[in-house]
């Protein structure tokens, strides 16, 4: 498969929460190839390194993808100033996405904060057989709840401070759910402590689990070997790379 790098028009921009922007970009070459969990590598004018951003939604018919990004530093701040009608420089689709089972299977996804957007495409695949548990700091940071519901999924919302949904963390809600249900697969994306806890719960219950990782990245295509993460593959421990071997890994392969 060829990689595509080009300038693509932004069709729509929405502010979802403070510092979180939702871009719909017209990029038919990327949309036709992309699968949930993959990412695009975005050039930031004035910065040396691109920013890897997970794909939140893919519309093959219209040829668009959706990118939800949070201002984390100076680079994403520059990206957040891009407006509708302007062009954005993307390489994509990159990396290894989520394994999607038959839509008749049951899937549960756990996401924290800006780790939530990559889960939308995966959970939407399962329609009403999908459940998503999302966690945010506070009501003001909550995003994408209507999108999960529109996809037919059951959406369980948690906030750290209890200002919306359940008061608590994603891991607590997942633990409770797993007491009464046994999904066929669990997906997770978010802070490392959450990923560790989700992977441990899945291992204990013998449920397949895939997690999406993040690491400081340069090339984005597997050449520079910058974004290393520790993995065990076929019994051999070594470094894999988030950009090419991931960002989605089977949780059993990752040394967390």
């Amino acid at each position: 498969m060829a990689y595509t790098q080009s300038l693509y028009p932004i069709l729509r921009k929405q502010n979802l929460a403070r510092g979180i922007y939702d871009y719909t970009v017209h990029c038919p070459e990327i949309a036709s190839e992309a699968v949930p969990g993959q990412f695009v590598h975005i050039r930031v004018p004035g910065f040396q390194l691109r920013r890897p951003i997970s794909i939140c939604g893919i519309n093959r018919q219209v040829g668009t993808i959706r990118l939800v990004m949070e201002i984390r530093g100076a680079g994403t701040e520059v990206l957040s100033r891009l407006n509708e009608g302007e062009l954005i420089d993307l390489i994509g689709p990159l990396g290894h996405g989520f394994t999607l089972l038959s839509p008749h299977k049951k899937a549960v996804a756990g996401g924290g904060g800006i780790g939530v957007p990559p889960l939308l495409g995966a959970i939407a695949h399962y329609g009403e057989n999908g459940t998503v548990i999302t966690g945010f700091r506070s009501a003001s940071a909550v995003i994408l709840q209507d999108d999960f519901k529109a996809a037919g999924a059951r959406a369980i919302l948690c906030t750290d401070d209890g200002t919306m949904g359940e008061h608590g963390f994603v891991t607590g809600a997942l633990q409770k759910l797993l007491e009464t249900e046994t999904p066929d697969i669990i997906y997770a994306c978010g802070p490392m402590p959450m990923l560790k806890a989700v992977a441990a719960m899945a291992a204990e219950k013998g449920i397949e689990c895939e997690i999406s990782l993040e690491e400081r990245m340069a090339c984005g295509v597997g050449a520079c070997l910058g974004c290393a993460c520790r993995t065990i593959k076929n019994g051999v421990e070594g470094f894999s790379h988030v950009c090419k071997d991931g960002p989605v890994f089977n949780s059993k392969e990752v040394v967390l």
Partner: protein
Amino acid sequence: MADLRVEVAGVPFKNPVIPASGAFGFGREYEKFYPLSKLGGISCKGTTLFLKDGNLPPRIAETPSGMLNSVGLQNPGIDAFIEHELPYLQTKDLTIIANVAGSTVEDCITIAQKLEGTAVDMIELNISCPNVKEGGAAFGSTPQMAAAVTKAVRGATSKPLMVKLSPNVTDITAIARAVEAEGADAVSLINTLLGMRIDINTRRPILKNNTGGLSGPAVFPVAVRMVWQVANAVKIPVVGMGGIASGRDAIEMMMAGASAIQVGAAIFADPYAPVKIVDEMNAWLDEKGIGSVKEIVGTVKPWGPDGQ
């Protein structure tokens, strides 16, 4: 269309643009963007005697107009290079430079011997990696060590030998003269400049290796200066690199004295950078009515003490 062909120590390149070691792997990833045959050559990922895991992550930190890396020579080892990467590259119609990065002098000799009789066109001896505890910059920081490792590898290979120099030294021309005296056919410079970033909230260095190598446009003027100094200090050809991001940068580096140039960090911002640089150089030469790119090498006209 200007003539873009160049030669470095008798090795022909169809154009002077070569992706730098470490920035381009063994080329496979970028063949998914464009045919590698558009490039003059490739300087392959630094290769050790055995598989090397590299340093703990994070290995990358952004800097103003550049970046730090501390990959630490992660590579599959020389046998895997010869068995799996070289056969692929041989089919791609570009000049192949193997980057030899042994941890010891003996390793460098063995690696060079293993490359005898292969399709590799040239050896680039890496005595300048700042991110490994053994070998690397430890070889390149004194003229004596640089001379010793060059002499050893010179005796082990019949292939053209280029030595890649570190900028983290007091006088890079002394190192360049030392490797020239021991039979190096060319020198390439600069490797990355040693740097560091600290997260002020955690008071931890961003890189797990604490320090790393600085590359990108930030280092370009340092590289131009060092290439100019070295080109004036040795008779062997110089391959220039360090922060080149455009055709104009490449022309400037060649005017400083480089017979060919390498491109590294610019590829991360734009994977097409090496191809664009070829096109931009060609356009500039055509605009100036210069028939061959060779005509610009070392043509900087430095100011004299009298201001003339």
